């Protein structure tokens, strides 16, 4: 199969790889670049576990061709903590006991991050809307919603 070059920034680091043409971003991140934080829950865009941020926008990496990300700025949950300090969302997911099996967690955190970047003071309805493409089977969602609201509050307190 023909290999194509892709080059993008992953969590601030420049990455370049030759990949099979037609490879999904999810596969390239996981198998080629060793970032297994995005998870393959359905590989058909219905569960949100593979969510990553591409140029500031939430994307399902299982439906995104790696070739289309050339030159992009890609962020995943694996790159969210800086210098070992957790992002307020990560801290809030811990404090609110919002993760059980943890499989949906990286995707949930990415979806929440895109929300908070655009809207630092979201309502509960905003949070629900932002998470509506992500499926969780363990928690019943309430702790996740609470975690996102908690993170937003801690962000605004830090800013104040």
């Amino acid at each position: 199969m023909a290999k194509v070059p892709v080059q993008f920034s992953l969590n601030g680091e420049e990455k370049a790889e030759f990949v099979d043409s037609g490879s999904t971003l999810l596969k390239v991140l996981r198998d080629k670049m060793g970032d297994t934080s995005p998870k393959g829950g359905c590989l058909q865009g219905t569960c949100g576990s593979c969510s990553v941020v591409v140029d500031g926008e939430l994307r399902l990496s299982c439906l995104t061709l790696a070739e289309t990300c050339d030159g992009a700025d890609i962020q995943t949950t694996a790159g969210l903590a800086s210098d070992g300090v957790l992002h307020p969302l990560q801290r809030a997911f811990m404090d609110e006991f919002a993760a059980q099996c943890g499989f949906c967690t990286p995707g949930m955190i990415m979806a929440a991050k895109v929300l908070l970047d655009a809207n630092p003071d979201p309502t509960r309805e905003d949070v629900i809307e932002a998470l509506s493409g992500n499926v969780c089977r363990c928690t019943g969602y309430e702790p996740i919603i609470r975690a996102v609201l908690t993170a937003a509050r801690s962000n605004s307190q830090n800013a104040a």
Partner: protein
Amino acid sequence: MAIRRGRGVAAVNYPTGMNLGGDPSQALVHSTPTGNFMVTLSSVDLGQGLKQVMAQICAETIGVKTEQVIIDTADTDTGPHCMGTFASRGTHRIGNAVIQAAKEARQVMLEVAAEALEVDAGDLETDGEGNIHVKGAPQKSISIFDTALMAHFKLGRSISGRGMFLVPRSYPEVETGAMKPSTCYAHACTVAEVDVDDETGEVTVVSIKNVFEIGRALNPKMVEQQLVGGSWMGISHALYETTEPYYPARDHAGTDFNEYLMPGPGDIAPTEIVVLERPAEDGPYGAKGPGEMCANPQIPALANAIFDAVGVRIDMMPITPERILRALKEQRATAH
């Protein structure tokens, strides 16, 4: 045509562990040279927090801090046998095995400390902060750190223990069904309140109030995780879920998360949870298995609330808007 409110109740119990027993689990515990403790299992953590609760059980039993306990599990080359993670058995069965192993390790630890302090092991106790001291004389003490070093490098003793828990298998008597299915049961009572739109058949869950009795909440935050998620799954089972919506016909079978229906973050019900604790005689520190029981009572409570609201009985799960509408149509036809 109107939105009609109704309320329903259900009360249930649930057995802990495999039906009829016969489901063993083992644990091994040993100390490192500096007095940390390793629990070796082959049990699987499905996300419910098995590793964390086992660490807390081991720490409680030995008398150290939980962070000093490491759980090594789910590897058949290193871990002793465990029947598996199912049947609400994890905390109960594996927890009991960990207690037994930890008690044996603690006994050795106290014997080593007794030799160091030149007292009887029976006169010693732990302070839970990493020290062993003579009862009533806290100044006569040795740290667990030093005790482990001494065991390893001076006395040549292994601070370790073996644990095994088995509820002997019960065989049902053929004609009467006399048997011992379980040694302890968790309990629940749920009150559900719903609004039913008698024009669309749509059900809105106004509130779910769950009372669960689980023996002992060994880690209340993790118990809460299970109960909140379980209550959501009960609602989901009652109103949404099936792989075959027209069972026994196989049409319209859901194949992904678009077609297989479950309540999303926008559909969750205001939920209240109260936990009661009646310790089980054979439970690890009294605990029973809460993981499965918590998803059951919401289903009949909702069915009963829907009847209370609109006067139709849907005796087939799931209780979909289509089924409610068909029943309402029949009800109106009979009324005329």
